[in-house]
């Protein structure tokens, strides 16, 4: 219920940095350091084999142990983190930028343009995302290009749809009409009036898309249609190590834990205040 005496209630500045956000940001920061600096500091080649150290436990020779070919887990994990996280970031950026721009355009212009974009997005939405990726992958199996393109093609629709609906809602508001009467142009209205209001929802959406992309890349690699071994990719690593679960359970879990920590960090960092 609205309170008519709004002026009497002192304005409280809500702390932006909630404990959940801090945890999430710290987690993301550590993971970023691991992914960026790890490959530089650990000079071991992630594909170098040493059969004497096959399935070595974490210890002084191999800090996080070695896999069945005796490759350093630390090197493989940090390379894998860089690859997975980098790919996810690129995929989401490729999906978000056109998605948001087309959404704004469609909300602003309406008419045939909106109908056309709606048709395209509905058709793409009707195709299962995985199928789209698989079709594209058929052209060049085991490479990054089609994987990335396929994921971006399925992910942009969410950005487009959410932007269009929320921006259309903002554009109908009285203050936008007032801004137009005051002489403000389209650019100002979209940039300064619409975007700030829909930003929180887009950030949340981006975090979800990022998680989806990471899990999709790992899943596809796990079922051997994504990146191929010996590329150190987190999903592929899990599948490679799975047969040795009985001897070295920790090794199988490590790539999974890394994915889990990243998704958790993303969700915590972008949690809304109300949660």
């Amino acid at each position, binding site marked *: 219920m609205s309170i*008519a005496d709004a*002026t009497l209630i002192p304005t409280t500045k809500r702390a932006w940095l909630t404990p959940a956000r801090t945890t999430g940001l710290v987690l993301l920061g550590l993971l970023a350091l691991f992914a960026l600096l790890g490959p530089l500091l650990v000079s071991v080649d992630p594909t170098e084999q040493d059969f004497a150290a096959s399935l070595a436990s974490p210890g002084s020779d191999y800090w996080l142990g070695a896999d069945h070919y005796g490759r350093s887990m630390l090197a493989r994990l940090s390379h894998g983190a860089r690859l997975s996280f980098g790919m996810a970031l690129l995929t989401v950026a490729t999906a978000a930028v056109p998605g948001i721009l087309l959404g704004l355009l469609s909300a602003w212009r309406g008419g045939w343009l909106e109908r056309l974009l709606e048709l395209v997005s509905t058709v793409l939405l009707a195709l299962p995302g995985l199928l789209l990726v698989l079709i594209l992958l058929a052209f060049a199996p085991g490479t990054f290009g089609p994987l990335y393109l396929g994921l971006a093609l399925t992910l942009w629709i969410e950005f487009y749809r959410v932007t269009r609906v929320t921006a259309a809602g903002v554009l109908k508001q009285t203050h936008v009409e007032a801004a137009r009467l005051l002489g403000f142009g389209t650019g100002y209205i979209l940039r300064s009036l619409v975007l700030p209001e829909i930003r929180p929802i887009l950030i949340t959406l981006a975090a979800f898309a990022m998680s989806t992309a990471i899990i999709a890349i790992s899943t596809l690699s796990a079922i051997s249609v994504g990146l191929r071994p010996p590329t150190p990719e987190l999903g592929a690593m899990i599948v490679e190590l799975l047969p040795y679960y009985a001897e070295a359970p920790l090794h199988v879990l490590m790539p999974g834990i890394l994915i889990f920590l990243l998704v958790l960090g993303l969700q915590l960092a972008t949690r809304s205040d109300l949660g």
Partner: protein
Amino acid sequence: MNAPVRFQSLTVSGLEIRAGNTTIVRDVAFTLSHGRPVTLLGASGSGKSLVAHAIMGSLPSGLSARGIVKLDDDDLLAGSPTQTRARWGRTIAILPQEPWLALDPTMRIEGQVGEIHRYLHGLGPAEAGKSMRDDLAEVGLGDRTKAYPHELSGGMCQRVAIAATHAAGASLLIADEPTKGLDAALRDGVVDRLREEVDQGRLLLTITHDIEVAAALGGMIGVMLDGSLVEFGPADEVLDNPQHEYARALIAANPTRWPALALPTAGEPIVSATGLSKRFGERVLFDGFDIAVRRGEIVAIVGPSGCGKTTIGNILLGLVRPDSGEVQRSPGIAATRFQKLYQDPPAAFAPHQTLRQSFGDLLRLHCLAWAQAEASMRRFGLGQELLDRRPGEVSGGELQRFAILRALLLDPVFLFADEATSRLDPVTQKEVFAILIEAVRERGLGLLMVTHEAALAEKIASRILKLPA
């Protein structure tokens, strides 16, 4: 049919509402008993709504109430949150502002009233249906039980809300601005209904800024200013012979008591339209309507709600396209010199921008200096500290003055005021119109105002155009 009324009186004394270490409402005391409703008058920001929420136990977080609020012998401030919630609806009910927003838009009104009998009182479907029909028949809606809220007028929605409180059997009714946004005829209907509630023995506390409502309800009137009750007494005494300076100003600010306005002769026409017609679906709003607004005159459009008053102004501004007819603006005037003032001031400002940001952007766009805006702010009695607040943190009256200031910065020749003061208290309304009239006089502004307040239009308009329902 009505649940027995269990409580005899509500006593408030030494009520204080604090936000952290600042006291925002202090020393509020009054007693409300059978047949003697209390009406609190005051500007928005005077703390009158907070008093209602303190009694209800629904203060926003961060605020706390102290003092004595007793319903007979029950101390309302002492109970736990669970006890407070248990009273809502059953003992104390609030009639919301703008009830069409408080009712469930997806549910027929029979369901909204019936579910109270069904689930709160635990009656069977047949009995609940019968009680529901009785409740709705009593407020004169016996034949509309199948209607959805959007099919009813604002006044009817308010009556549905009253029927719902009947069904719950609340003995204390708090009506928070019950007539906000209603035109005179609907307003009188709601006031009559509230009077009947009092006659049936319910305790009634009304919060309003409309003096007509306070006068019609009778009983006791309290006037609030800056968080204190500055005047309290029987209605006719307060209205005829107010003691406190602010109470006098408030009562004198009722449009019926304004002095008549004499404007210099109007100049050339700025905008005119001929043969306008507009329909929404099957309904014809107007057909063959002519209007012209000249420099230095005030034209008022009056009529009941929903008759298309606002649409005419929007057509003149080019915001709505008429089905037929033509609009001519006098040539060579920049489009930004045609401006509009909105009914709901917070809606006219971007909610996430501070006023400093939105004014800064406007001044930059039109290459104006801050000094000019600051000079006008001083003239309109707006403090510099308000600039760092967001629209939701400024009172309606202040925000409407900001809206006028914003429009006047662009040196308008035509201003369309769409119910611009209907949500403001009389004192603020008078101040706002003083500023507008000054602009009309000094700058030759052509003012088109839409209002449902006939008295206001008669006092200040040079010409009045009446629209039929």
